[in-house]
């Protein structure tokens, strides 16, 4: 099971900060994961594709074509606001 993390407003949209998810066979990269999420939640998938949202795989910055597997932690980060 891949572990998917949603931060900030994305967590509210996803109904939770973390989700365990068996990746479908065709969800072999970040774009594929978002496509899989889109099948059940169009609003969340749209939010994940916003230009300001960054994807992180195993704590490294990722892109749409970054490969992922069921062993990975994939996080989606909206714009930060510390301090």
């Amino acid at each position, binding site marked *: 099971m891949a572990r998917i993390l949603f*931060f900030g*407003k994305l967590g509210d949209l996803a109904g939770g*900060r973390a989700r365990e998810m068996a990746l479908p066979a065709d969800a072999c990269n970040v774009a594929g994961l978002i496509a899989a999420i889109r099948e059940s939640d169009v609003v969340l998938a749209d939010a994940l594709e916003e230009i300001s949202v960054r994807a992180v795989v195993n704590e490294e910055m990722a892109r749409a074509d970054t490969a992922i597997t069921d062993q990975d932690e994939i996080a989606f980060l*909206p714009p930060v*606001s*510390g*301090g």
Partner: protein
Amino acid sequence: MIRVSEEPFDPGAELTAFERAADGAGAVASFTGKVRARAASGAVNTLYLEHYPGLTEKSIAAIEAEARERWALEHVNIIHRIGRLNPGDPIVMVCVSSAHRRDAFEAADFLMDYLKTEALFWKKEITSGDEAWIEPRDQDYQDAARWRKEK
């Protein structure tokens, strides 16, 4: 020292501890940011701060490393609250020591600008009956951009 914690902290006590560790430095600059009593909407303001355990600390360490590349610093402490905060609570504190005061001042200023725009925190403003995730203001991005132009 980088500390991300749900525990409230006392800026005066933190400065005392920092000064003890920074013994021998000629200059110590500190900055504390606190929860404002009122949100932009005017209502009483509480905050909820979320972070990405592990990666947030790494993002702060990267900011500190960049500051140390730019200025001759001795000790650096960065403390950041997470979880639920009340009006008046300190959210963030940076303490910087150096031999000369320009280094300490500029580094503290830089650290705050980057903590606002680069560190992995997400902040929700909670007022009576409403809540909203906050994004950096244009001013915050402009403040951070100063450092790219200057050096």
